[in-house]
């Protein structure tokens, strides 16, 4: 394993350690404030110069999360969808009337929020800033998928949502009530969805250790397989040239530069290890990907030549969360045992 060599560049000494106090399931940045989402109840906000602050969000498990620059959206087994901003102010965006688990949540580029409970996907349009028509400006639309929703993703442009489910995915325009949702079929259980930044491809993670993709213009299929485990994390590189994926004992990057996407091409394989990559996060500005392993190791890899930088030494728990700040200078990581860190790359 290359990273264990003494000549590997390390940024470990630039890490600010954080005790999150619970299983970490995701990390985000709200500007320069790191947000560590716990498996239960709370988000831990860490300002650059301040103390970590625990903010309660749910009465129970946090099942999924999404974020933009201004807020972290969390979905809970208490049936609530909660927005938390950088100041630690939380608001309940919606509550399921039957208190069903909110399995998935997604944020649209225009601030719209989507979530799912069982087979039903919901979209809430962005809240109006005008206090007088606040209620009427927030609209809720629902779509019933053929089976339990496995994942949600907004398209980068246009008010359109990709919904992954059993035997395929559905593309839904929540505002076009007359238009029939578009169905994309592929046998099997699709558990996660990602739309490419240019909106040309939809990629789903499957129950099997593989990904499936559709080139949307002609619905051409793409099968991306060879993984050791179910792929639980994927990330588009800056500009969408590569899709970095977890689930193998190395960082697997599928090429999406050409109009054919990865069809007929082999992926680029970086940072080989005897351990499995569980979580990936691409740098927001340059072609660098962070890979978190199930032995606690975090490596940064330059996609062009595979050059590695050590960001976290192996520890006692799998890495469960990785996030870059918008300017790409800070990297947050978190583990299953509640250990966390913010690496300042300057």
């Amino acid at each position, binding site marked *: 394993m290359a990273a264990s060599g003494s000549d590997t560049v390390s940024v470990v000494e630039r890490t600010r350690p954080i005790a999150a106090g619970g299983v970490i399931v995701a990390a985000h940045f709200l500007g320069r404030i790191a947000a560590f989402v716990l498996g239960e109840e709370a988000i831990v906000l860490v300002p650059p110069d301040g103390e970590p602050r625990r903010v309660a969000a749910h009465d129970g498990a946090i099942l999924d999360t999404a974020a933009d620059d201004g807020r972290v959206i969390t979905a809970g*087994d208490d049936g609530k969808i909660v927005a938390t901003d950088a100041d630690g102010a939380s608001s309940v965006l919606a509550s399921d009337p039957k208190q069903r*688990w909110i399995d998935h949540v997604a944020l649209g580029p225009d601030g719209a929020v989507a979530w799912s409970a069982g087979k039903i996907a919901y979209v809430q349009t962005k809240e109006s800033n005008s206090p007088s028509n606040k209620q009427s400006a927030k609209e809720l639309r629902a779509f019933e998928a053929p089976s339990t929703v496995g994942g949600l993703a907004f398209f980068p442009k246009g008010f359109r949502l990709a919904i992954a489910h059993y035997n395929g995915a559905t593309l839904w325009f929540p505002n076009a009530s007359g238009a029939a949702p578009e169905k994309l079929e592929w*046998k099997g259980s699709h558990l996660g969805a990602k739309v490419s930044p240019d909106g040309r491809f939809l990629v789903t993670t499957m129950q*099997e250790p*593989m990904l499936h993709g559709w080139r949307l213009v002609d619905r051409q299929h793409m099968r991306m397989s060879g993984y050791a*485990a*179910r792929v639980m994390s994927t990330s588009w590189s800056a500009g969408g040239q590569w899709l970095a994926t977890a689930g193998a004992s190395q960082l697997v990057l599928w090429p999406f530069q050409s109009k054919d996407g990865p069809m007929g091409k082999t992926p680029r394989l970086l940072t080989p290890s005897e351990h499995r990559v569980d979580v990936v996060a691409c740098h927001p500005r340059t072609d660098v990907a962070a890979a978190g392993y199930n032995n606690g190791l975090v490596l940064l890899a330059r996609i062009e030549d595979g050059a590695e930088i050590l960001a976290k030494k192996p520890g006692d728990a799998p890495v469960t969360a990785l996030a870059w700040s918008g300017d790409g200078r800070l990297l947050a990581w978190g583990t299953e045992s509640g250990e966390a860190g913010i690496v300042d790359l300057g």
Partner: protein
Amino acid sequence: MSEQSLSEKIPVSEKIPVTVLTGYLGAGKTTLLNRILSEPHGKRYAVIVNEFGEIGIDNDLVVGADEEVFEMNNGCICCTVRGDLVRILDGLMRRKGKFDAIIVETTGLADPAPVAQTFFIDENVGRKTRLDAVVTVADARWLNERLKDAPEAKNQIAFADVILINKTDLVSPDELSDVEARIRGINPYAKVHKTQRAKVPLDAVLGRNAFDLDRILDLEPDFLGSDDHDHHHHDHDHHDHGHDHAHAHGGLKHYHDEEMQSIAMHTDKPLDPDKFFPWVQDLVQKEGPNILRCKGILAFKDDDQRFVFQGVHMILDGDHQRPWKAGEKRVSRIVFIGRNLPGKMITEGFESCIAQ
């Protein structure tokens, strides 16, 4: 049969045990569940129930499941998982520490196999939780009828590690022994308990470790029901079957189910691993849809370790268990429970794996 999978890296004792309750409609699953929850055991349970269930469950952590059964995309039609369980167990494990064990109550028509296969197939599920046992509740009065007209009921009996013959107060002693003999004809290996209102000691249904390779100790048929004072040993293999028939052994009837059987084989000659593994893998590839469960303890030639394995349909899981003890008889035993199994072919195949 990989000897080292990721799921084995976490000690079994740290995994949350999951007990699956099955049983045909009205047999008493919910009664058993409520009994488990209300006993003063000091344990906290997370309960996964069918979301369309009618009877209330008195427990803090109850999750509704929709029993979505998915086929895996691996060309194997019997390789199915419960998609909702993958999702729910992942969610529950985020609250690790809030409960000690998980109980899954299935609907009366459910097949236990997809539930069990979920633990073998999904690495994320298998890493944090372990299947403890499949417990089937059978209605003493109606089981015989259901075995004739409901394939689901027969599946649930064949698949079970523990069977409660419930509502024994509604049948005569003769009828009860007839039901027991029918159950034995399908599955001689499950622990059988006769109950009224599902009253059974909790350790009879929980903490069974029935799917733990390290706990596969012996594969003797369990004719000795723990609350049965009329013991009879039946010591013959169940691989030759014709039509449904019964014969008496010292008073207790013995049935061979015409559709579902168990095939038990043993040999004190060492097996050749280079013959055994290809044979068993080929067998489950071909007969997987019909094989519900299999288990084995194996003694290989030139190998001082006991090898144990188990399987559900086409999925096999096996490992070296421990060294054979000094003086311990090195006998290989293997059991298949399934539907219309080709007994002669299986027996001959097993015998051909004996090392020369």
